[in-house]
């Protein structure tokens, strides 16, 4: 099982296509070494077993990208991504802004469809089915992958209605069944104790952290296999972030979680594997402990301590 996907030395040849003005980018692409020694972050891998055995329970990848590229018109979103995402683990995607992290995440759910002139090539398989196949059932696909956005975006409805939205779409009509799902989901998102008594209250009355957890509960209510999180903590304070990280930990046992984050510490804390994206390309993909302690690529070594990006 190869966690690190060996990249061909393509980067210099692509420089002509991808124009990035910042010198840091060019430094990265050209593999220029910094004079200062890289500042290492001490990462204590939370689960030694993960790094030892590869991955514990599920061996077969749930999401499989093979030479997957996505273009917005003539602009490159992501290019030539080949990576496997394994079930029941947390995969962090890191990288500088505009590098295609979110694009890749949205592709898994085909949320990019909203943007005009989107074009995909290569293969992106979710449980064996090509996401960009013409015959794919979008509703099923999206219910398989629950999405959590950067900013909390609960509907202007009651807390109950927010969580029950997905199940209702799936055709659940019975009130008792809905109540059960709502409670389960809210418990899973560690929100139940806080909102137990005012489920009828508008979701917009909650605090930012609560709203984000509500959004996660909403995503969980459809019983997705994958949980896609697009910088879920970037709009939250450290306390709320801590809460969310805690239950990402809990959710890991039953869900496949892909999380996009700007926060290196967070990636180190929550993820089992990490992928570094840069300018639409996958630079390195390995277990988190290896990525943070002993990266095989120069760019990774430069990026992770925060020397650029």
């Amino acid at each position: 099982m190869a966690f690190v996907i060996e990249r061909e030395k393509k980067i210099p040849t692509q420089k002509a296509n991808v124009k990035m003005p910042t010198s840091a980018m060019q430094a990265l692409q050209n593999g220029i070494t910094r004079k200062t020694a890289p500042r290492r972050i001490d990462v204590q891998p939370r689960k030694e077993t993960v790094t030892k055995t590869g991955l514990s329970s599920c061996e077969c990848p749930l999401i499989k990208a093979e030479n997957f590229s996505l273009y917005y018109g003539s602009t490159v979103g992501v290019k030539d991504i080949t990576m496997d995402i394994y079930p029941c683990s947390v995969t962090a995607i890191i990288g500088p802004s505009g590098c295609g992290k979110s694009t890749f995440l949205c592709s898994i759910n085909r949320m990019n469809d909203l943007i005009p002139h989107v074009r995909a090539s290569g293969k992106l398989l979710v449980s064996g089915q090509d996401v960009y196949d013409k015959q794919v059932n979008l509703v099923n696909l999206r219910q398989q992958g629950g999405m959590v956005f950067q900013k909390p975006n609960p509907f202007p409805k009651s807390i109950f209605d927010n969580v029950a939205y997905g199940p209702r779409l799936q055709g659940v009509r019975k009130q008792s069944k809905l109540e059960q799902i709502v409670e389960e989901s809210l418990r899973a998102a560690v929100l139940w104790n806080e909102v137990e008594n005012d489920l009828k209250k508008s979701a917009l009355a909650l605090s930012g952290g609560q709203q984000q957890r509500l959004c996660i509960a909403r995503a969980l209510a459809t019983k997705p296999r994958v949980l896609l999180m697009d910088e879920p903590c970037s709009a939250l304070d450290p306390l709320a972030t801590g809460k969310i990280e805690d239950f990402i930990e809990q959710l890991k046992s039953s869900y496949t979680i892909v999380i996009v984050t700007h926060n290196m510490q967070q990636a180190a804390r929550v993820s089992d594997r990490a992928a570094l994206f840069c300018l639409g390309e996958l630079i390195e993909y390995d277990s988190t402990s290896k990525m943070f302690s002993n990266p095989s690529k120069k760019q990774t070594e430069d990026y992770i301590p925060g020397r650029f990006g």
Partner: protein
Amino acid sequence: MRVAVRTTFDKAFTALAALSVGLLCLVLVMILGPMTWRGIGAVVFRGTVAFRKMQLAEFGHGSESEIQAEVAEAEAVRKRIYEIIDAFKRGIDTEELTDKARRIHRDFGEELRYKQIPRQQYTELRSMTRDIRDHLEAAFASQDKSQIAQNIEYVLQYEQDERFKGTAAEGFFELAIEFQQTIAKIDLPKRHEYEQDLTEVQYILFGSSQRPGLLGPRPDEPLPALAMNRYGATRWDVAQSLLDQLLWAVQWVEKEPGKPKVKIRTSRLERFAGTKLEPLFGYIEQNLDKILRPRWTFYWRYFVDDSTPGHYFGGIGPEILGTIILTLLSMLFVIPLGIISAAYLVECASDSLAIRIIRTCINTLAGVPSIVFGLFGLGFFVLYFLPVFGAPSKPCILAGSMTLAVLTLPVMIRASEEAIRSVPPTYKEASLALGASRFRSFVTVTLPAALPGILTGIILSLSRVAGETAPILFTAAVAVGPIAKSIFYTTRTLSYGSWDMAVGDRLSALVPHNQYGMVVALVALVLCLNGLAIFLRSRVFKKLKGH
């Protein structure tokens, strides 16, 4: 620019803005204040006995026995007025005498026709009575004593004629003798002047075809055909102005040649000094309370009652009903259409040339004068659309409400479009990410979130529709007519009624309180509808915000 200058400018602009806002408020108060005050006068006023009589006879309100007793009491006080006038009339009111003479001539002719006498004899008798009649009329009209005596003598020479004995023609001689007696007592040169004044006094008291009088028709006369002439002054304020007209004669006199005439008020009491009519004025002035029996009345039925033609009496019930029906029906058309159009423009339409043209058209249509929509409604809905669906091609509520809907559609589309556009796209994204279709996302998430903005659009449309006159001018509204039985009938509306009373009717000038009442009712109705919508909007808004 120096800071001091900038501050000065800033203060100047603030002052200017405050001034304009203040002016606007002042104008509003100056217009709305008196209007509302006078409009309230249509509902709260001092109603006279004639008002209660009218309410009973025309609308069936009130207790019959009570009102009859009240009328009887009032009539008892009025009796003296009739007596004074009748006494004065003798010999003065020659018009009445002339009428009598003519009637006798006519009756006599009828009698002869029944008798079936030979034709030659008939002609002879007819020419004789015609001759008598003409002489009598000449006597009545003349101001010369000797001439009158001559004419009367001529008439009386036939008194002993056997052929007139026991026929209607005897009335001629009674008339002649009576006139001979009265003429001996009165001042002939003044008679003509008195006659004119008396006619005026009678008009003011008993009404004319131009306007109803202070007391209404005399009980011994037949009931007038028009409802408005059947009753005296129904309101105390009207009675006061009529009393003023009774006591003071207004004349336009040319004081200096070439200059405009000057209005002079002369007391009728002085004009009739020394005559039998003199006590009348004092009597009416002192006993007006007893004659009219005014009482403070809260006429709440003004908002439900039908009215007599020309809105002379009664309320504005059908107008209010018609306005509400027209407004709500047009809202029924415009709300779904507006929201669907806006949804299409925001969610589905691409930025093509056609869509841009449509957008421009919508913006332009919002500023088109309403009369243009009225003509469109006539040309399209009334003359084309209704016949296509088998309905008669004539104005009706349906056509009117559709015209109003078309009128306000651009406003509705623009407001809804803005509202839908201002819903954060994250809502839609979240819904789509949960697997909802685009339609479902729109209906369950975007639309509820856009509801406050859409309600604002509805409020704007509602106010515009309720107050519009021009679009329903040719398509739905009438000034006089029965209450609509269905949406295929014409209706009366407040806006059209106000317009009609303001421009059309001579009678409406006599009832300004009804004009103001109608306008104030329209303003109040629009305010109420708006208040309802605003209340609804705040509820929705609160629910969305979760407070």
